[in-house]
């Protein structure tokens, strides 16, 4: 019954999306006040129905209802409860349902709370949202029904891929999806504003919280995904330029650019067409990412649900949405009135550089990710890896960081470099000192060297805007910017330090032996068998001490899962503020020796700390903006009420 209920809710939600689209289109065509009143409620109810449908799927997974094909294929009665629940979205159908749910819930949320946009733009936005949503409903209902029955019911489930049975990974896809789908809202806003030609600062202010929200989730999702790959895959790396990783990085780059250009539009009424364009591009990148991951056209370490038919479906949606949005853009961009002018040396100027550099990096990543697909059409196999991505993207990333250091110090509209001369000279001197200091004392590569110097410069420059200001009065949005920029510096420092100073030890050790790696002394005590809920493992017991300090325990494991049968190695980590010790236990070899791989990774944890700081900065900015909006709204209401009472009194008199 639950499965049928879920499916019915999904059909009803799809029907409401169709209603929302048609009613919206009619309202835009000619004024239909009666229909206009339909659009908002349709969006809200649609959101509720989609959420109910998703709740039904979770319930099926919790009960392990093996008469549902999806549950039988992806779950198992003996799986821990948290992974049963996460199993609901740890597969193609379930994750698409999650996608649709988030999408229609955000549509409903816009309909409920957004009051700033002109009514017609609002209707157009909701119609655009329904247009995008309908494609995904069709995808689910016609090609990926999560509620399909299995007859006869399976006696037992097949289980979930053990690599996915990890608490970090269970919440990783929903986080990324909130980001991806949040960008669909930005897309709908952009299309809505184009349709009614209302590209105004008000529009940018209305869109900005959605972009910010999506961007925060993308940031956290990428950070978490990188950390997951780092500790779960056991190879000690944190970024691989894998197509699936790129699929999340590309929308992030576009969203970062959009965030900054929306700020220019909101504050200064410039970059109108550019902002709209980025809104379209950002969601296009989400769609391209989805296509790459779902089509099976690229096989990646992370990809799942490989099915060419589904790939074609997503490709068709991609072409439809992006094609129609770009056509609309082509037709309307010329009529979007010109914005305000600004001088090159101004806050706007710096943000334009930021936007262009981010777009260039986006182009580089996109070309590198798609290139193997193109050559494959000509039967040439190519793989594009770090030797391409690292130096080529750095060529744009490094100058962008230089502008990041100066931009926040500049005033809007018009400024002179002379005014910020002292700060710029200070930052440059500090950067050069670090560069020289590291250069003379170590022999590290050029990119890590530049990275270290720039990270210190950016860190200093990010806190400079705080100077001479009343910290308690400072708007939260400014704090957000400071935190996010500081996070970039922290992450860059971690990346550079890790690639420059990592120490590695690979040994075949006998229990009782002590291994030294960097400042650590690691004693290999013993190997013991241990058992988990659905696996058994051999666990290495290590005690590690940092430069003669107190010994701490580590327990890397080599695990055997039995459903499905698979071996994984679970690395063990010891974290200090200045780095991480990373241990992997390998196979037993003759003579009672065990393969043991140890890494000392200085400051590696700062990579993800920086990522979290960037996300936290976004969160501060979001809270600041929302609070400001609420204050402004209540103030406006109070003024309106006072006017009304004054008018009433006058009338009475």
């Amino acid at each position, binding site marked *: 019954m639950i499965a049928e209920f879920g499916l019915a809710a999904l059909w009803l939600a799809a029907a409401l999306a169709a209603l929302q689209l048609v009613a919206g289109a009619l309202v835009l065509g000619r004024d239909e006040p009666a229909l206009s009143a339909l659009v908002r409620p349709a969006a809200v109810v649609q959101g509720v129905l989609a959420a109910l449908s998703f709740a039904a799927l979770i319930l099926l997974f919790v009960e392990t209802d093996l008469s549902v094909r999806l549950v039988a294929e992806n779950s198992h009665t003996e799986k821990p409860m948290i992974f049963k629940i996460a199993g609901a979205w740890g597969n193609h159908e379930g994750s698409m349902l999650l996608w649709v749910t988030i999408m229609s819930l955000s549509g409903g949320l816009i309909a409920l709370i957004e009051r700033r946009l002109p009514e017609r733009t609002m209707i157009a936005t909701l119609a655009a949202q329904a247009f995008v949503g309908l494609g995904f409903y069709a995808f689910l209902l016609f090609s990926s029904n999560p509620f399909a029955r299995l007859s006869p019911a399976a006696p037992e489930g097949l289980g979930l891929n053990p690599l996915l049975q990890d608490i970090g990974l269970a919440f990783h896809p929903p986080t990324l999806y909130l980001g991806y789908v949040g960008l669909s809202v930005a897309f709908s806003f952009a299309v809505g504003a184009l349709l009614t030609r209302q590209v105004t600062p008000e529009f940018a202010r209305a869109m900005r919280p959605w972009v910010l929200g999506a961007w925060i989730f993308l940031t956290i999702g990428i950070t978490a995904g990188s950390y997951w790959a780092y500790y779960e895959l056991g190879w000690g790396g944190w970024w691989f330029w894998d197509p699936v990783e790129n699929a999340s990085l590309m929308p992030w780059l576009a969203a970062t650019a959009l965030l900054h250009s929306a700020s220019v539009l909101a504050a200064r009424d410039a970059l109108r067409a550019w902002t709209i364009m980025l809104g379209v591009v950002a969601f296009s990148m989400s769609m391209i990412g989805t296509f790459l991951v779902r089509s099976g056209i690229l096989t990646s370490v992370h990809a799942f649900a490989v099915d060419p038919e589904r790939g074609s479906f997503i490709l068709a949606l991609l072409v439809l949405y992006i094609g129609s949005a770009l056509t609309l853009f082509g037709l309307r961009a010329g009529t979007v009135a010109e914005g305000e002018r600004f001088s090159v040396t101004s806050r706007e100027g710096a943000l334009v550089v930021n936007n*262009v550099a981010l777009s260039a990096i986006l182009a580089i990543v996109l070309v590198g990710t798609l290139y193997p697909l193109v050559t494959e059409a000509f039967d040439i196999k190519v793989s594009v890896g770090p030797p391409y991505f690292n130096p080529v993207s750095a060529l744009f990333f490094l100058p962008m960081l230089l502008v990041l250091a100066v931009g926040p110090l500049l005033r809007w509209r018009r400024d002179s470099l002379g005014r910020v001369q002292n700060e710029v000279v200070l930052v440059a001197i500090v950067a050069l000192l670090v560069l020289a200091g590291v250069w003379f004392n170590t022999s590290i590569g050029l990119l890590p060297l530049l990275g270290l110097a720039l990270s210190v410069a950016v860190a200093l420059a990010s806190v400079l805007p705080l100077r001479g200001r009343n910290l308690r009065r400072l708007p939260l949005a400014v704090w957000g910017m400071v935190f996010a920029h500081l996070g970039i510096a922290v992450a860059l420092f971690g990346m550079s330090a890790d690639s420059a100073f990592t120490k590695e030890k690979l040994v075949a050790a006998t229990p009782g032996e002590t291994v030294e790696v960097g400042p650590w002394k690691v004693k290999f005590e013993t190997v013991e068998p241990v058992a988990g809920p659905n696996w058994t493992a051999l666990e290495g017991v290590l005690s590690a001490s940092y430069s003669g300090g107190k010994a701490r325990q580590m327990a890397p494991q080599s695990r055997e899962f039995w459903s499905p049968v698979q071996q994984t190695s679970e690395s063990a980590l010891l974290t200090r503020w200045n780095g991480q010790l990373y241990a992997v236990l390998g196979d037993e070899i003759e003579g009672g020796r065990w393969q043991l*791989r140890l890494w000392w990774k200085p400051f590696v944890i700062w990579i993800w700390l920086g990522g979290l700081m960037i996300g936290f900065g976004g969160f501060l900015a979001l809270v600041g903006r929302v609070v400001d909006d609420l204050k402004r709204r209540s103030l406006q209401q109070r003024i309106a009420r006072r006017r009304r009472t004054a008018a009433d009194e006058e009338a009475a008199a």
Partner: protein
Amino acid sequence: MNTGLKAKHQRLVLIAIAMVVLIAAGLLAAWALRSQASYFYVPSEMIANPPEAGQAVRLGGMVQAGSLKTAADGVTINFVVGDGDAMVPVRYSGIVPDLFTEGSGVVAEGRLDAQGTFIADNLLAKHDENYVPRELHDMTEAQKRAAMEETTK
């Protein structure tokens, strides 16, 4: 600096600059990719047209049955990667990926040394039953069988 430019002109200048930078990025990417085109090799290509010693490349193929040997240090392994036509010896120091076995596909990242042995820094094997490195995806079943028979003769 003055803002004497008309708004329309300023917009054109902005668009021009953005286009120039994006085209530059595209050209740079294309140029870098051309020099990367020889990044991935299968054994027959590597034998016929070897990359320069020390240049970072990827080698992909099947781990030949019976070729896997662990060295005395316990952490270095030697094996042979073949594609049915040619074979390249590979040396790797480290803990092999979970699903790395003889007869399965592998992509090795590393460089060729002067003696013609491929020194791998990293092995990419299947991460689960369904994952095959992309480059090996359409090596046909027949080719795989041929590669296996070659080594079991």
